[in-house]
């Protein structure tokens, strides 16, 4: 028998063994649950960071203790396959009862089709908060942000879908030994200019002092935007104030006004504030390793934990992972954004942005077709009770999402800064504008990049992208409206027959939602008509 045949035989044997093992697992699993009265609640997430699975597991076991007939299963799915996995499960009708909000679950279409709006339950207290300071507080108001924003509240569908476990804030993590070695002290930058001074010092003296190449900031396509978008938003605070309307709304989710302003030539990407925003983005990019936009999050973490970068910007969720991986002491400080007195970038800002309404995340959605919807909802209430969120925070090392939960001393620097101004807009106003900007980003962030090269390159592609994004938004608004209309018709009928006590309230809510949706849609259609683009069919 030649070598090739032996290898094939080994391969086939391994394949058969794996198949047999998989069959055994499937049958043993079925055998466990079929024919028993046990209700199994499954929840899926992609948080593989240290401590998180243990935290969820502890909550599941606590729930099982007080609900003897219920088994709670945790499904940890790797982040890179999570979108595909979720879509497959949803399309196949085999999704778990609760699914963590992720990139594949967030579209309006998917939310409306596969997930149960939770709005009708959030106005009542969470029964698992009995005996706590939140006993009489409506469930929604037990969260730090009152579930007012993404990803828990959908501004297009005007419904609450997600129940969160944590608050995410972005901070700079720094290598304390390296910081002292290079700067000679541990005085942290309090202003943007001081921060830039630290970066320059690393560039100039880092290699000489440490004996190896050190970059100021470990960047990657997921870490870099944590800093650059924050700096960008700051530069367009005053500009956004001209567009935000009398309700002082935030930019996120309300970008239509900007798209139309550019299409009508009332606003240009060459506006001094926008140019300044891209300039500060370019500047920050120069302090990251070359080609960082091609790198993954893991690459940036590796660069930092190997001592080849002084700092990395990431979310509070990475605290435990980074401290456990790094062979050095880690310190934390907030991303220093320019203030009004900044000599270069102070002109366009109001001041540091508020983190009030910082998104509460790690949010679970209730699968519409869950066979145990009420039980899953009950578990969701349990999981997000004050006591269980405290358990989650303690075991995961993450910030809590629920009011009144004590925060560990080492997590206090991550607490959201409530005082601060409303932030400006991010540079992305839709999927197509994102694509055009992303395709040309190298002209801004590359070592020989510049704001002029970047903006000149966007040209007509950007306007075309604005048109297609505006048409897509109008189409989505119309589809959302159709969905609400059918729900409204059903509740009107139920209300008329007094069949469901809450039907009249629901009719009132749906009418209000429809009015808001129609205002946005009719406005979008009018704007597009005036620009010479009739509505898409």
């Amino acid at each position, binding site marked *: 028998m030649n070598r090739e045949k032996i290898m094939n035989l080994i391969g086939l044997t391994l394949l058969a063994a794996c198949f047999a093992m998989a069959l055994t697992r499937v049958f043993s699993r079925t055998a466990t649950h079929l024919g028993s009265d046990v209700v199994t609640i499954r929840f899926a997430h992609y948080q593989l960071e240290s401590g998180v699975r243990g935290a969820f597991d502890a909550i599941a076991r606590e729930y099982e203790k007080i609900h003897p007939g219920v088994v709670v299963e945790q499904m940890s799915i790797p982040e890179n396959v999570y979108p595909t996995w979720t879509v497959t499960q949803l399309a196949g009708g085999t999704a778990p009862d609760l699914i963590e909000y992720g990139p594949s679950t967030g579209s309006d279409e998917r939310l409306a089709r596969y997930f149960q709006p939770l709005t009708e339950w959030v106005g009542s207290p969470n029964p698992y908060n009995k005996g706590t300071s939140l006993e009489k507080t409506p469930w*929604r108001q037990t969260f*730090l*942000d*009152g579930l*007012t*924003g993404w990803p828990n*509240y959908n*501004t297009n569908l*005007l419904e609450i879908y997600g129940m969160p476990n944590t608050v995410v804030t972005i901070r700079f993590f720094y290598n304390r030994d390296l910081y002292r070695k290079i700067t000679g002290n541990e005085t942290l930058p309090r202003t943007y200019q001081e921060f830039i001074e630290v970066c320059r010092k690393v560039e100039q003296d880092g290699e000489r002092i440490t004996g190896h190449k050190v970059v100021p900031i470990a960047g990657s396509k997921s870490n870099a935007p944590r800093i650059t978008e924050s700096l960008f938003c700051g530069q367009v605070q005053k500009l956004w104030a001209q567009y935000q*309307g*009398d*309700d*002082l*709304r*935030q930019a996120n989710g309300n970008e239509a006004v900007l798209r139309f302003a550019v299409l009508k030539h009332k606003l240009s990407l060459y506006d001094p504030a926008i140019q300044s925003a891209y300039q500060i983005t370019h500047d920050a990019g120069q302090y990251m390793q070359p080609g960082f936009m091609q790198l993954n999050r893991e690459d940036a973490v590796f660069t930092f934990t190997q001592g080849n970068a002084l700092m990395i910007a990431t979310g509070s969720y990475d605290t435990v992972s980074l401290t456990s991986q790094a062979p050095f002491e880690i310190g934390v400080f907030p991303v220093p954004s320019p203030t009004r007195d900044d000599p270069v970038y102070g002109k366009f800002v109001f001041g540091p942005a*508020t983190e*009030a*309404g910082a998104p509460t995340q790690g949010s679970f959605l209730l699968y519409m077709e869950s066979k145990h919807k009420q039980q899953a909802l009950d578990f969701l209430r349990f999981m997000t009770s004050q006591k269980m969120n405290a358990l989650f925070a303690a075991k995961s090392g993450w910030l809590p999402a629920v009011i009144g939960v004590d925060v560990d001393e080492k997590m206090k620097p991550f607490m959201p800064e*409530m*005082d*601060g*101004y*409303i932030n400006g807009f991010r540079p992305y106003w839709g999927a197509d504008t994102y694509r055009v900007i992303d395709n040309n980003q190298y002209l801004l962030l590359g070592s020989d990049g510049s704001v002029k090269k970047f903006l000149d390159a966007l040209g007509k592609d950007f306007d075309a992208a604005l048109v297609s994004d505006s048409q897509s938004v109008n189409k989505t608004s*119309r589809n959302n*409206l*159709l969905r609400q*209309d*059918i729900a409204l*018709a*059903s509740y*009107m*009928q139920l209300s*008329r027959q007094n069949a469901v006590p809450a039907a009249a*309230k629901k*009719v*009132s*809510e749906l*009418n*209000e*939602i429809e*009015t*808001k949706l*129609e*205002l946005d849609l*009719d*406005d979008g*259609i*009018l704007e597009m*008509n*005036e620009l010479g683009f009739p*509505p898409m*069919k």
Partner: protein
Amino acid sequence: MAGFKQIPASSPQGRESVYGQAMMLLTVQPVTRGNINLSVQLFQSVIDKNSSDDLGITAKYFLGRIEQIYRFEPDPARAIAIYEDLFHNHPEHPVAQQAFVKLVLLKLYDRIPDAERAKDFATFEVQGAKLQDHDAVRDFHLVMAQACAKFGFSEEKRLDHLLAADAAGVVKDDSKANLIVSIAEVARKLGRKDLALQYYRRFLDECPRDYRTYTVQQRIAATEQPAP
């Protein structure tokens, strides 16, 4: 759909089941012109039996909705005609009053000369004063307030409409927060300090974790300062 079809059209629930079939046809995927046309026929048969009861009026309302948003080629003019007819013939019915709100939206956001829009706006202010249904009153004033901002109508009128919407009572938390801030801001711009402060403070009381809290605190401080 099958459930509705099982109920004979001649039975006491027959008319209601035809109405249900008409609604269901609008949800069947993929959406087809045939299903939309069939839905129109079914709604029309409900109306033909009685155009003045709850079901007849609601069926007519959805005929308007089909022309407005369900058709592959929407026909706003046809929708407007249906809504006008409904409101004219049943001005006290809640669904007809909601049809009036749709009518206001369609006409104000049509591509028409500014003078014509201003004239329509004035007409709607008179007609809207007769609305009684809570939802219609609230939604009408929200639409009119938004139109003032969008088309540059009077800020005083905008404030009146915002206050009227607040008096009617919005039910969604985020809508409420937006409405309270808007009233405070417009009042501040019009120099009505007391009203502005009242609403700024109400916002802090009712929306303590909103991202606008710090900005509103700053507004209160600035508004409380005596004029130089």
